[in-house]
């Protein structure tokens, strides 16, 4: 007997494995087992066994006290209601909340963004405790009246300074706390030290050029109460440094050289203590990535680049700040000017002075225009400069040429002129570079420049070719058009543009196709039974004579030329409305000559009303409704009514299904071969699905012209042309054959003549007419040979006629 089977039901059964050996208990052993089962020893043993079973909880967490208990009770299926993992009570509210969290919070429309670190906001990195408070109170008491008492903030600032300085100077103070530096030693470090952000701020303020007495405030700073200025670090140290140092030193020693302000405990190198609950951040065991020299170099380069980036950014930000400061100055100046002018005006009125007005008003209402030269403008400027240099060179060249030919006085005049021009140009550049920064935008400046260059070009115009001017313009145009990117032809997307004509054309095509499809469908439904010429919407109603050899159902697709069909009569109903309702009684008939013919045969054209169900009858054979109707030209139609309703109703009229079923069910064994029910159900489906129509479309032979998806018309045309070309080819072959035979005949004739000449060598002159007269019979021989085509008969006739004449 296998062991697990013996275990009581409250234990989980282990799976029986093929690989595991099972112990076989003998009968006398079983008794012991049962005893063991009850005994306490065994339960202990079982508990140990229990814990070996996977609990799904991480191994080291299993040992947690509460979890352990729960897991055990779970396995032993004990009552586990009073077992839980204790959690802190979060249901209580804090009474003093309103005291500390005041003010109304308004939810902003955007997300709340905050990128400052905690240290950026909480001021100095030192917080006072009770000991410090007592010390500070004592200190302030002992102060002379003239000295302003030390505030808590200032005290914290100094303490923080001490802490950071000592960290700087004696990083391993905790090894020997007694060796702490004296105040005199620490002082220079403290003065240099930058506690909090005041040093950074000072530096930034200096770089921007803020006045010294003005506080540098960023948006992160609290607004300071007016009048109260932060004391300088130096004065603070001077005043209180000594005293605070003693206090600080005491505390430091009592803390064994560690920070006075408690720090979060974290793991030091290598000494890992899993049992210390106060360690805040534990190091994760991670495999050290392999360091290579390459990675080191890369990383250091990255860091350098990052530093560069940050420096650039800082530089830019500072420049912007400087600019804003400059703007502020400008505005202040503006304000001052305005006020001074106002004062001056009132004073003038008092004194009655009516002169010196030029300072009172700005020359024009100046619009503030930025004159930063953008890259494009700089490029333009550069281009223009180059152009002008070119022009000057040309000018000089021409002058030199002129100098050779003309006398010296002219030369002098010209050179002076050119130098003047040169001066003007250079002066203009100087202007551009910043002598008048506000008055004109760079655009107007460059325009002026352009004008200048143009006018100078015109001045030289007498000597220089006019093409020069246009050249300049062209180049300027090029410069301006460089902004747009030229795409190579291969990259221009290949889009066929739709035009209205095309769209209309395709629309018409699709409607035509739609009508055609509809008509074809109807044709399929009509099948072989109906031949309806009205199918073609493009034809009027015709009475056609169909050639004998064409069967009516193939007629629409027949490739027999349309001329073989003869329109005997055509019908026309002038009132369409009446025609549709079936009440039309004036049908006009025309014969093929287009003359109106007396109409006494048809008062009514065919009209099928599908909703007219009075006419149908039930056949005996099929439970299907048929309808007979007489169509146009006395054509007879038989319509099968669609069997969309339940066919069983109709079947029941003929067969007593219930009876059969009953009879069938009475028999226990169904005889498959004789079963009426089975037979019926099969015939039911036969009726249901069998139809005269092919549901997948008409038979292939029904549409001979629908090969290869080519329309009927095209097929007809193709077939026609094929016949034509075939006929033509035949004709050509025949002609060639005929001509060759003609040539052969001629050759034969010639040889025959030569023979005759040889035979009757004595009388060659009389021979000629003889030979000619002998040709006709040979002609007639050949005429039989070439064959059937009547065309070929005409050329030989020509040959015959001269003979006859002869």
């Amino acid at each position, binding site marked *: 007997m296998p062991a697990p089977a013996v275990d009581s039901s409250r234990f989980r059964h282990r799976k029986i494995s093929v690989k595991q050996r099972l112990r076989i208990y003998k009968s006398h052993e079983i008794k012991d087992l049962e005893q063991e089962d009850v005994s306490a020893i065994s339960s202990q043993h079982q508990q140990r066994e229990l814990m070996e079973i996977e609990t799904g909880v991480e191994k080291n967490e299993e040992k947690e006290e509460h979890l352990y208990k729960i897991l055990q009770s779970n396995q032993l299926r004990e009552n586990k209601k009073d077992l839980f993992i204790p959690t802190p009570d979060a249901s209580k509210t804090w009474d003093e909340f309103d005291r500390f969290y005041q003010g109304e919070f308004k939810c902003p429309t955007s997300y709340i963004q905050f990128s400052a670190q905690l240290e950026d906001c909480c001021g100095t990195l030192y917080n006072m405790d009770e000991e410090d408070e007592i010390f500070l109170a004592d200190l302030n008491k002992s102060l002379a009246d003239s000295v302003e008492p030390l505030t808590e903030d200032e005290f914290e600032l100094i303490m923080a300074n001490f802490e950071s300085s000592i960290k700087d100077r004696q990083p391993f103070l905790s090894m020997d706390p007694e060796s702490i530096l004296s105040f005199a030693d620490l002082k220079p470090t403290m003065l240099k030290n930058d506690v909090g952000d005041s040093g950074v701020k000072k530096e930034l303020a200096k770089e921007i050029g803020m006045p010294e007495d003005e506080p540098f405030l960023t948006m992160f700073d609290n607004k300071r109460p007016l009048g109260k200025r932060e004391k300088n670090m130096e004065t603070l140290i001077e005043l209180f440094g000594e005293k605070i140092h003693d206090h600080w030193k005491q505390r430091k020693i009592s803390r064994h050289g560690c920070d006075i302000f408690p720090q979060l405990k974290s793991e030091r190198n290598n000494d890992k203590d899993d049992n210390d609950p106060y360690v805040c951040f534990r190091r994760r065991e991670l495999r050290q990535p392999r360091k290579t020299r390459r990675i080191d170099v890369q990383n250091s380069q990255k860091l350098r680049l990052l530093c560069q*980036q940050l420096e650039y950014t800082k530089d830019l930000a500072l420049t912007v700040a400087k600019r804003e400061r400059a703007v502020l100055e400008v505005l202040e100046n503006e304000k001052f*000017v305005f006020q001074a002018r106002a004062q001056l005006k009132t004073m003038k009125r008092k004194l009655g*002075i009516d002169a010196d007005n030029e300072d009172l008003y700005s020359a024009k209402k100046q619009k503030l225009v930025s004159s930063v030269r*953008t890259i494009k403008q700089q490029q333009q400027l550069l281009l223009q400069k180059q152009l002008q240099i070119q022009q000057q060179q040309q000018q000089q060249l021409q002058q030199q040429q002129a100098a050779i030919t003309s006398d010296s006085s002219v030369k002098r005049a010209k050179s002076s002129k050119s130098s003047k021009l040169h001066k003007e140009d250079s002066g203009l550049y100087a202007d551009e570079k910043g002598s008048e*920064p506000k008055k004109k935008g760079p655009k107007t400046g460059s325009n002026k420049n352009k004008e200048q260059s143009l006018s100078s070009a015109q001045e030289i115009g007498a000597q220089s070719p006019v093409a020069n001017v246009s050249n300049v313009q062209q180049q300027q145009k090029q410069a301006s058009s460089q902004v747009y990117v030229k795409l190579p032809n291969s990259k221009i997307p290949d889009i066929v543009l739709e035009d209205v004509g095309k769209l209309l054309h395709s629309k018409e095509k699709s409607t035509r196709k739609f009508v055609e499809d509809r008509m074809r469908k109807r044709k399929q439904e009509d099948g072989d039974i109906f031949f309806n010429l009205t199918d073609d919407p493009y034809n009027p109603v015709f009475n056609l004579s169909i050639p004998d050899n064409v069967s009516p159902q193939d007629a629409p697709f027949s490739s027999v030329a349309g001329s073989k069909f003869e329109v005997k009569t055509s019908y026309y109903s002038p009132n369409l409305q009446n025609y549709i309702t079936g009440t039309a009684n004036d049908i006009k008939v025309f014969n093929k000559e287009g003359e109106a013919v007396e109409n006494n045969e048809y008062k009514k054209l065919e009209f099928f009303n599908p909703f007219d169900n009075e006419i149908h009858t039930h056949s005996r054979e099929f439970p299907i409704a048929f309808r007979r109707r007489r169509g146009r030209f006395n054509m007879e139609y038989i319509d099968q009514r669609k069997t969309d309703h339940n066919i069983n109703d109709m079947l029941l009229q003929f067969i007593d299904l219930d009876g059969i079923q009953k009879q069938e069910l009475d028999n226990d064994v169904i005889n498959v071969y004789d079963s009426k029910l089975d037979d019926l159900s099969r015939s039911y489906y036969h009726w249901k699905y069998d139809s005269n129509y092919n549901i997948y479309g008409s038979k292939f032979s029904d549409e001979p012209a629908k090969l290869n998806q080519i329309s009927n018309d095209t097929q007809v045309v193709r077939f026609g042309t094929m016949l034509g070309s075939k006929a033509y080819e035949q004709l050509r072959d025949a002609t060639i054959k005929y001509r060759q035979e003609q040539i052969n005949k001629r050759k034969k004739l010639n040889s025959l003549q030569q023979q005759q000449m040889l035979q009757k060598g004595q009388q060659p002159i009389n021979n000629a007419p003889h030979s000619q007269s002998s040709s006709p019979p040979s002609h007639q021989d050949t005429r039989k040979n070439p064959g059937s085509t009547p065309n070929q008969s005409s050329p030989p006739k020509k040959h015959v006629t001269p003979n006859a004449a002869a």
Partner: protein
Amino acid sequence: MDEQKKEYEKLKKKLRDALVQKKQLEAKWNSLEQEVYDKETEYLSQKPSSRMGNILLGFQGFNKSSSAQQILSDHSHSSNAQPLDDNDRIFSLSSYLFAKQLAASNHQEQTKSND
């Protein structure tokens, strides 16, 4: 009366000085704007380091080892950089006047291209 006249003269002189100062200040302002613009151009078109990240793109690029390797290794591509987008000039655009100028020049270009 004389005293008033003296005061008038004094005020006038002050005003004149202020006007002169005004011109100087405006020149300074202008040169500062130009400086910002030029520095910005240099900063934004700085090839290798900018591609790893700058103040506009963020500095995440420095964190990726793969991209860094590429950028540091190939200096050849640095020549064909895409042109600066004027909207990226956050420093220059912090000046109202520059923003206005940019808008105006863009407008001009558009009208030019429409012609």
